[in-house]
Each structure stands twice: as C-alpha cells, then as structure tokens.
C-alpha cells in the first residue's frame, strides 16, 4: 500500500495559480499524481496547464471529486484555506505554507480534531511522497524509489538526507511523511506510527525528530505499547544551546525538557535504536533488514 497519498489520491491545490503553487503542482502531476483541480478565489473557470481552477473548495470537491488538498497560499490566508478544505469534505489536507501564526494553527488543529475522518499534515512541511504512486508537496522525488522503509520527519531537507543515505544502501520507501517544523503539527509521529504499523508495504520505520516539544518522548511510549515493526530513530540538535530557536518554530529548547539527549534517551529506553548521524541511521537499518 503506502500511507496518506497513493493511487487513490485525487488532488486539489489551493494557491495553484501562484508561482510556487503552479510549479510544484505541475511537478507532482509529472510524477504521476492525479491532480484533479485547483482553488483560487476569483479565478474559477480558468485552468493551469489543463487543470481546472475553482473559486471554492466546495465547487472543486463537487465537480472534480477531489479527496486530498495541498495548501500553498501565503500565511495570512492559510488557516482559512485549510478550514475551507475540511468544511468541503476533503479527507487529507497537506499544508506546505511556512509561517502561519501560532494562534491560527491552534484553532485549526482543534477544529480538525473534531471532524472525524479529516487529517491535516503540516503546516510548514514538505508534503508526502509514496514512491511510484504519488507525490504531494515539494519532496524531490527522483532520489527515492519504491520499497519497504517508511520515513517520517519534522524537517524537510533532513528527510532528503536520510532518505538518500537509505537509497545509497539500496533501500526504497513505502512513504515519506513530512510532519512539519511548527509548534502545532496537525499530525504527529504517533499518528503516522499507527499508519505504518498497519501498512503491509512498510517493514521498517525511520523516525527523524529534532529538539523542542515532546513528540519524540510520546512516540517512544507509543512504540513500546503498540508498534511491532522495528523503528530506527534520529534526533537533530544535540549541539543546540538552550533557549535559542533554530529556524523551526518548533525547534526551541527551554530548560532541560525537549533536548536531543533527553529524546534519544527516551527512545533508547524503549528499545528504539537511535543513529547519531544520518549515515548511522542507514547502517542500523541495514543491520535490521539485512543489507
């Protein structure tokens, strides 16, 4: 199978007429993703290289049968666009936009959690790639091939780095899920662990975390209780000084909680092996799966 995006995906892109939005939409389509429509208020009736544009998500769902949304609109409008997609009945919403105000994210997160069947990935994430099936977002697909390793990460380029190390050792991926670097991600490690555990294509799970928050600690508990497949961890930010934000709003350490060392310890205490470099992650993966 794969998780979140695949052959069933019918994608509608919010912000499709913008330069970034159209560029990545067309890249996604060229990869084989079924892009059925786009939304830009006021530009309904136009098209982007043959992809019909609608004024509202409701119209896009009704007329193009979209079930997945990719949100590319600027931060002031992104929360509204996510809520519109959810209200229109979209099941999977992948928000790429970086810089959404925290209070907007909090309201959106809370509302989406109250809508059964709706899932938000991101915001501030590179998207989801299921090699050989579909790519929704900005992950450079050419580095990845189909395989049995599921990857989930809070950082975009670090995902590519780890994915590439795995690929060089001959591994492919079921799905690569970018969770995003913001304080309130719509989907957490635990959610994706559950998906990978239930996905028959995935045989090993790589989890790439970073400093800040407690998502990795919570995931460690969940893995011990519910995950039977092997998990390999990585944590970025061992050398980050306390109290400094390292680019991601999520990547801030305050006090002793949320440090890379504490996270690695929490994972190792539950039997999860943690690579100290991206290369080591790949080496551990080989040991587990047999190279």
């Amino acid at each position, binding site marked *: 199978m794969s998780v979140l995006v695949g052959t069933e995906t019918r994608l509608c892109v919010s912000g499709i007429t913008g330069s970034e939005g159209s560029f990545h939409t067309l890249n996604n389509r060229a990869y084989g993703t079924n892009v059925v429509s786009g939304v830009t208020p006021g530009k309904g009736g136009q098209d982007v290289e043959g992809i019909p544009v609608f004024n509202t998500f409701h119209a896009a769902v009704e007329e193009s049968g979209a079930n997945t949304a990719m949100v590319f609109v600027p931060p*002031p409008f992104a929360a509204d666009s996510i809520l519109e997609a959810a209200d229109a009945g979209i099941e999977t919403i992948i928000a790429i936009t970086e810089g959404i105000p925290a*209070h907007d994210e*909090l309201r959106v997160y809370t509302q989406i959690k109250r809508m059964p069947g709706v899932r938000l990935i991101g915001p501030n994430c590179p998207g989801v790639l299921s090699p050989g099936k579909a790519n929704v977002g900005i992950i*450079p697909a050419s*580095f990845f091939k189909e395989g049995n390793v599921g990857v989930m990460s809070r950082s*975009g380029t*670090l995902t590519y780095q780890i994915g590439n190390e795995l690929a060089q050792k001959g591994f492919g991926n079921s799905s690569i899920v970018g969770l995003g670097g913001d304080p309130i991600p719509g989907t957490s490690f635990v959610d994706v662990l559950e998906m990978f555990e239930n996905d028959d294509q995935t045989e090993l799970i790589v989890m790439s975390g970073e400093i800040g928050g407690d998502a990795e600690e919570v995931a460690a508990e969940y893995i011990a209780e519910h995950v039977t497949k092997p998990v390999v961890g990585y944590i970025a*930010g061992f*050398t*980050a000084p306390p109290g400094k934000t390292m680019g991601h709003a999520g990547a801030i350490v305050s006090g002793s909680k949320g440090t890379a060392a504490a996270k690695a310890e929490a994972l190792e205490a539950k039997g999860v092996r943690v690579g100290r470099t991206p290369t080591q992650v790949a080496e551990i993966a080989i040991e587990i799966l047999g190279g």
Partner: protein
Amino acid sequence: MDLLEYQGKQLFARHEIPVPSGIPARTVDEAVAAAEKIGYPCVVKAQVKIGGRGKAGGVKVAANAEEAGEYADAILGMDIKGFTVHELWIEEASEIEAEYYAAIVFDRSARSALVMLSTQGGMDIEQVSEETPEAIATLHVDPLLGFQPFEARRLAFEAGIDADLIRPIGEFLTKLYDTFIAEEAMLVEVNPVIITPERKVRALDSKVTLDENALFRHKENAELRDPSDEDPQEQMARDRGLTYVKLDGDIGILGNGAGLVMSTLDVVAQYGGSPANFLDAGGGSKADAITSAVEVICSNEKVKAVLFNIFGGITRCDEVANGLIEAFAQAKPTVPFVVRLDGTNDVVGRKILADANLPGVYTASTMNEAAEKVVALAKGETP
C-alpha cells in the same frame, strides 16, 4: 518576540488590565523629569528582558528628585546577567498587601492555552512549581470556546484566593486571556499581581512574548522590535532574510533547511569541531542569498573555516555553486571552505566549482567527509 516590562504594561493597559502609571526614560534627565511628574515615592526600574532585576540592584525606590537621579545614573548602563540596561521605567510606588502570580502560556504539548494562578507571587515561580506544585492552580482552555467565567472562578477557588477577591481576580484573568488572544501572545505572565490595601488588583510586572509570525497583523507591536539588543551578525542576517544563530565555536556553518543545519552542527561536533553559528539559507538558496550568507558568516572574526552543506531539493546545486563563486568575488573570504553538494543538479554544481578553482575551497561528497575536513582545516591542518 519578547517585550520589555513597560511595553507589556502598555499592552495590558490597552486591554483594561489595571497597571500602575509610569513613564519610560533613556537618560538621567528624562528619568528625573518623569519622577517629578509621577511624584514620590516612585520606583526606578531597569528595563531588560531577563528576570532577577531586583536582586541585581536594578529596581530602586526613590523618595525625591535627587535619589531618582542617583538611581537612574547607577542603573542605566548596568549589566544584568549579560543584558545592558538602555532604558528605565519610572513608576508610581504601589502599596502591597498581597502578591499573587498569574500567567497564560501557549502550551504546545497540550495544544491549548494554559492558565496558571497562585497566591505565591513575588518569588521565583519555578521554585514554587518544584517545591509546592499544589500551590499553583492550572487549567487548559478550549481554543474554540475561549476562557469561561466558571473557569476563572474555579482557578481562583483552587488557588485559595480570599472570598472577596474571587470576582476581581476572575476579571483580571479574563482580561489577561483577552490580551493573550487579541495580541497573539505566546506568553503573558504577571509576577506579582498585587492586592492593594483597598483590595484592588493590579499588574506590578509584565512578561510578554509575542508570536513573530503574527506581527504582520499587529503593526503597533511589530514596531517594538529593538535592534540594539540583537547580536550584530544576527541583525545583519535578519536584514538579509536569513535565519542565523550565533554560537561559540570557530567553524562557520551554512546549510539549507533547519533540520539539516542542526544535523550538520551535530556531525561537526562529533568530529571534534565547534560550530560558530547556525545558518539556514532557506528553501530557494539563490545566488544572492549565498553571497549574503558568506558575508554574515565571515563577519564573525572567530571563524577559522566554513562548511557548506547543501542537499538540494527545491534548492539547485548549480545555483549554489554559482552563488558561491559570486560570493568569493564580492566578499573575498580569507578562511578555507569545505563544500558538500548533493541532490538536485549536484553533478553540474560540482563541475562549476571545480572549473572555478576557487582558492581554499575543498569539496566533499558526504556530510561526514565534509565535517572531518572542516574540523582539520579549523585546526590549521591540511585535510
């Protein structure tokens, strides 16, 4: 973005939270004029974005103009835990019967705002939280419902507030929550909330952190940014749209994407090196961004060698290579560089670099190799 105490109080006043009146001052003359206007006794308070000002001697009560001038002179320029005092807040003295603590925090783990109330105000709240956690009443607010009157009452009762103050404290918390929401704060903290002999509730201090991502719709707050309290390199980077954090070491680091850069710092440290900075050139990493990045990194005199770690996704390695050539032409760096280009158009990028034959530039094909080389170069060895 952190606010100074008086800026936070001005924010509070906009939302009808009672605060003592006061006037900001940047010189001794301004401070004396402010004191004369406010009357005596008045309080001369250092304005720095760090706690423990009182203990450091940054808060003094003046009984007359002479004292106000004397204290202003002593406090201006004072160093408090590494922060220099550039500004004072001259405030009317308050009569204090009791000191409480109130705060609202954006609790990312619980995905809601956390409201806290305690009668143990005026002291280090972290110590209270460690020694007597039951002395702090806490409650998470439903983000879509907002803070309800019953929640304010419950907190007040649980914190053990006197019966006559349940309602006024409830109103105080409600206004604090309104401020938190309306100004899009990540933290509003009042320590202490004071009770006057007339049983009035007032905010005697303020600690406010605003969400930088929301400043576009709070123009008034955006203007409160103070460039003087930023590190010069950090300021230079901000002006050029780069994310830069200064560190203590001697190896300059540039990469694309926050996670990859953090990982690069770690790998350099594992090879025995000490990073001088975190610099994320961002998703696009166009040529001018690279030039700016090189200038920012090399303006730090401690830097002995630089590591460029690029994994191209949206970023194209050929653009990075061209950017680096341009940066060398403009910034003329004198320290050696190790460049690792991988990802989109990496082969072309590496060829461009090889053809340019830049002085002191070494290439590497993996992150580990790059880290090893740059650590050697920083020690003055040839890799």
